[in-house]
Structures are given as structure tokens and as C-alpha cells.
């Protein structure tokens, strides 16, 4: 019996360690602009967004969702949004995310396709893995708004 408890404890410890490791990191706020710098400041972010746009246009899973959009405006808004989110000196002036995606009925497949394209665009611009992960982490709270969940 004692042995059983020990084994369960080990399993619980493994899970807890993971959760604590994850939790500790999420408590570390970065009020500074380190991520913004790692992304190559506003021009670096603008390059990523430009490559993202090329990937979106070529992606049959999602390009229909972007039909008729103002490309220049989309590029400016998303660049500002990522710039602000990463701690840079920008202000997103576009529409609120939930309202913006309200009638689009974005599926998990489409959301995954966009996430994939963003990662590929960051890779193409040689954004370090850690910076990619940090940016995605800051984008995560938008998931329910974009999917309208």
C-alpha cells in the first residue's frame, strides 16, 4: 500500500512540476520591450506580416476569408497590433477582435492554418524560437474572440 502511494506521488509530482514550471513563467510579466526588440522592432514585425499575407493568399483553407479586404490597412493594423503586444511603441487602431470576427465563423481548421502561416512567416524572418513562442503566448487570449467561442 505504501509503495502504491509513493508511485502515485511520483506521477502527481511529474504533473505538478510541469504545471508549476508553466505557471511560474506566466507570472513573470515583461513590461519591457525585449520581445519587441527580438522581433526586429516595427520593421521586423512588418516583414513578418508581409510574408504572412503572401502565405494567406496562397492558402486555400483561409484565403476566401480575406477576400475583398484592404491589404494595406490589414498590414498596418496587424503590424501595429503585434508591435503593441510585444511591448513596442505602437497603438492598434483597428476594430475590436470579437466584433471583427463575429460574422466570419472561423473554424479550428482555419485558426490552425493562420497559426501555421504566422509560424512559417516568423521562421522565414529568422525570429528565434523563444521569441516566436512568447509572441504566440501573448496572442492566445484572442483565441476565444477570433473563434467566437
Amino acid at each position: 500500500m505504501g509503495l502504491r502511494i509513493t508511485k502515485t506521488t511520483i506521477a502527481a509530482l511529474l504533473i505538478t512540476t510541469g504545471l508549476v514550471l508553466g505557471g511560474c513563467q506566466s507570472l513573470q510579466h515583461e513590461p519591457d520591450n525585449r520581445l519587441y526588440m527580438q522581433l526586429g522592432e516595427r520593421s521586423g514585425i512588418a516583414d513578418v506580416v508581409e510574408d504572412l499575407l503572401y502565405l494567406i493568399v496562397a492558402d486555400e483553407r483561409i484565403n476566401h476569408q480575406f477576400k475583398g479586404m484592404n491589404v494595406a490597412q490589414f498590414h498596418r493594423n496587424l503590424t501595429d497590433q503585434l508591435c503593441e503586444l510585444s511591448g513596442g511603441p505602437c497603438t492598434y487602431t483597428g476594430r475590436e477582435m470579437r466584433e471583427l470576427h463575429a460574422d466570419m465563423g472561423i473554424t479550428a481548421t482555419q485558426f490552425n492554418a493562420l497559426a501555421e502561416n504566422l509560424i512559417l512567416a516568423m521562421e522565414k524572418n529568422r525570429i528565434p524560437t523563444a521569441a516566436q513562442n512568447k509572441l504566440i503566448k501573448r496572442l492566445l487570449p484572442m483565441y476565444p474572440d477570433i473563434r467566437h467561442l
Partner: protein
Amino acid sequence: MTRLVAQPVKKLWAGTLVTLGLLASPVVMADVGSRIWATGGVTTIEGSAGGGLVPWAMLGSYASDEEWGGTLALSRAEVDDYSLAVTGAGLNWNNRIEVTVARQTLDLDSLVFTLKNGFGLEQDELNQDIFGVKVRLVGDVLYSPWGQWSAGLQHKRQRDFTVPNAIGARDDSGTDVYFSGSKVFFAAVFGRNLLVNGTLRGTRANQGGLLGFGGDLNNGYEVMAEAGVGVFINRQWLVGAEYRQKPDNLSFAREDDWWDMFIAWVPDRRLAVTAAFVNLGDIATLEDQQGIYLSLQGSF
């Protein structure tokens, strides 16, 4: 004897050819699903998506909510006195339901002599079929703050019950029930993404079912805790460890918990290669079984 040895090798080759055929087919290549790389896990030794030894809450293949997906896998564990070969296949509908089949073949190697001298049994391998189903109940492993939660069944049928029967197992088939939670924490360890899995399994299986189900020490379901932790070095490399608690139903031999340390390489959605160090503890009187595990998975 020769036939028995040759059979798994033949199966392995046939499976490899099928896998390679699928990997090479451009028609199939276009259909690989939309979920993010490596979020289908790999194929466990029981066929369900997960790590090597533990099923995770993620469903196999890369099918997202409007897609079908499938996997084929060949795995092999070589520990001190045994080798286990697994052929597995799975289908995923809309990232909601995963259906899997797996055939396990355990070569008894050294145990052949124990069985012959102790029990007068001539048996050099044990085969088991596993039919699995897993349902994603709620959440997404990447995007949901509380992760992804799934429940599954593994129905196992021992095809060579003579040996398990002789050492005290009660049944030649059994069904494991499990509940699993998985979550990726972004930028959690030195900027790397951390994957955490916890699984609770209700089971009567001895050594996963290869030694039958139930026994003289215990014949009922017991709840076992299983866990896995991994760190994505980047989107192609995952390193981690797993732990699987096991019941101890047979007085014939003590059964130990399993653990492994793994590294998985996922160059793209079509291929995953997993290597691991596994420790399976004592198995059927042969002590401290350690060795290596290799697994090749194709997704389509």
C-alpha cells in the same frame, strides 16, 4: 520455430512498405491535416495517440475540425530479455474521435526456457490485439487555458492465452478505460513550449494485457496514474519523460511501474520518429528490464 521468428519480420517489412508508400504518395501528401506540427503526439505501444507508453489527450494525425486524418506506425522495444514489436493504425474524424488498432508481438527470448522447464510450455511469443477509441471531450491542447481533455477505451484481446493462464491470469481479454488531460504551455521553460499530460486508467491488465487480465492477488479494476512531460526544443524536436503506474495482480511474479525518457523528431506532418530509453522493471520473473524503444509513424 523458423516460421514464428520470420513472421514478425515479414509483417514489419510489409508495414514499412505501406508506410513508405503513403509517405511517397503526392495525392495523400496534400491531405495531411491542419493541426500544428507535433500536436498529434505519436503512436503509443497500445495504438492510441500519446507518447510511447502513455496515452495523451491529443488525438492522432493532424485532422482539425473539418478534416479526416490517419496514422500508421511501427514500433519496437528491445529490453534485456524481451522484444516487443507493435504495428498500429489510427483514424481521426474532425479531431473529435480517434479509432485505433494495434497488434503487439512480444518475443519471449529468455523466458522460453523458464516456461519450458517450469511449466512444460512451448511458447516463444505472445500476441495481443488492441482496439481503441478516444473522444476529445473539451478544449484544445494549444489554445485552451485549461488544456484538452479526452476519454478513451482500449479493448485488448490476448491471442496466446496458454502462458498467461498458466501463471494465474483470469481472462484472455479486457478493456482499459482512461481519462486524459494535456496542455502546452507556451514559452514556459527558457522560452520553450512545455507539454504536460496526466492520465488516469482503470485496468485489470497484467503487463498491459500481454500476460492476460486479472489474477490471484487482485481480479478487479484498479485506477492507475500515468504522466508525461515534454519540452519542445523547437517545433521539430520534443524531449521528455513518461511514467506509467501498473497493477500487480499475479503472485507468480511482481509487476513494476514503467517509465521512459524520449526524444521525438517531427520533420513535418507526414513523419515522426521517436527514440526512447525504457525501463519496464521486472517482467514475469526476469528482473530490471531496460532497453531502447524506436518508433516510426506516418500521418496522412
